[in-house]
């Protein structure tokens, strides 16, 4: 399949695109980042701060501590042992990942019952990305898992702050327009770019931003083509296995050159899928639990 290069956006769309970015910049309608993030940033920059002090700060916040431990223990990081303290989580995951976990858990909190399939998909892609990163020996597989978790952040954001546009996008998709073009037609920008834009606003590492920005557009990636290719492949494999739910009824478009960029053959793809299966089995318990929680929360006034 050839990707038809879109002609330059018509004026209405480029206006819309500006409007979307403006809204994102001001984080209008987005859950504000918990104040703890700012404190955390200061502490991380201050070299005199010890990891112990950082852990102490986080542990003061019960809700965030619970969230961190729950995510760290969910099988997508796949630690053999239960992570029971923030300090342990910090040592296993690194500060960057920890920071991201705090941020994303506040975004994903806005996910509703009908959207949990997307969250499930993201968790599956996180697990798969980590397996692929380890397979090809790419450094800091934890960080790649986190990029996997965030790859559809833009879709979450569209659902949370551009509700009316989301409806129009869904309508187009049900008329047979492919999801990426539908997003571009309505918003002038797609979810990959939105996610990356927001991540840049949050000062997340460039590696994560680029991976998310180009996970549907490998050709345009520059410094982190392997990372983007990992997300691209993980996204396909998780869809192919039927884990979670996204706007794609079947499979997302696949660029086979991802395999070339990663140096992977079919034997390795097979190993990756066979390693992924038990991970997904374990993750299912975690997401089912979340589903139950969300549906009881929604029932309460």
């Amino acid at each position, binding site marked *: 399949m050839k990707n038809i290069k879109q002609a330059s956006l018509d004026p209405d769309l480029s206006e819309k695109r500006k409007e979307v970015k403006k809204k994102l910049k001001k984080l209008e309608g987005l859950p504000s980042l918990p104040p703890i993030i700012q404190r955390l940033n200061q502490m991380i920059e201050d070299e005199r701060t010890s990891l112990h002090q950082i852990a102490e700060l986080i542990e003061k916040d019960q809700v965030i501590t619970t969230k961190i431990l729950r995510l760290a223990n969910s099988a997508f990081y796949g630690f053999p*042992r*239960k992570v029971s303290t923030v300090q342990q989580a910090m040592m296993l995951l690194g500060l960057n990942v920890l920071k991201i976990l705090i941020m994303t858990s506040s975004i994903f909190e806005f996910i509703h019952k009908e959207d949990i399939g997307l969250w499930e998909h993201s968790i599956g892609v996180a697990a798969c990305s980590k397996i692929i990163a380890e397979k090809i020996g790419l450094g800091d597989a934890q960080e790649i898992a986190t990029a996997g978790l965030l790859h559809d952040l833009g879709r979450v954001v569209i659902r949370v702050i551009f509700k009316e546009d989301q409806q129009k996008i869904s309508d187009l998709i049900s008329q047979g327009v492919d999801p990426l073009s539908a997003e571009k037609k309505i918003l002038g920008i797609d979810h990959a770019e939105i996610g990356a834009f927001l991540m840049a606003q949050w000062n997340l590492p460039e590696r994560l931003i680029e991976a998310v920005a180009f996970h549907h557009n490998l050709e345009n990636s520059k410094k982190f083509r392997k990372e983007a290719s990992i997300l691209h492949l993980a996204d396909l*494999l998780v869809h*192919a*296995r039927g884990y979670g739910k996204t706007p794609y009824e079947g499979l997302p478009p696949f660029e086979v050159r991802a395999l070339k960029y990663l140096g992977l053959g079919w034997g390795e793809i*097979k190993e990756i899928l066979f390693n992924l299966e038990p991970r997904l089995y374990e993750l299912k318990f975690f997401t089912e639990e979340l589903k139950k929680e969300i549906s009881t929360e929604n029932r309460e006034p």
Partner: protein
Amino acid sequence: MQRLPLSYLKPGMKTYEEVYDAQGRVLCGKGVELTEEMIKRFYELGVSYVTVEGTPVKLPWEKSLEEELSELEKRFEGVNDENLLQIKEILKELLYEKYQASLSRS
């Protein structure tokens, strides 16, 4: 056999394989009937999952092989790219192997 998180374990279930802690030490052999105390100890030692004999818990999200295969066909409907079809073949193989294993072992 069925792999279960600790919260699903009940006394009386039998281990299908050894239970290890994070350091790889054996906490419990195979074919051992679980007791309340043992499950408590697993919690304390940070065990996350234990594989038990049979399929004592009905998991509402689990599908039969037939369901899995027909859903796989649906996801790949209209796909004729040979690379994607290769992935489909691997998944089929995976499903057959998975269900074969649980049949012959349970």
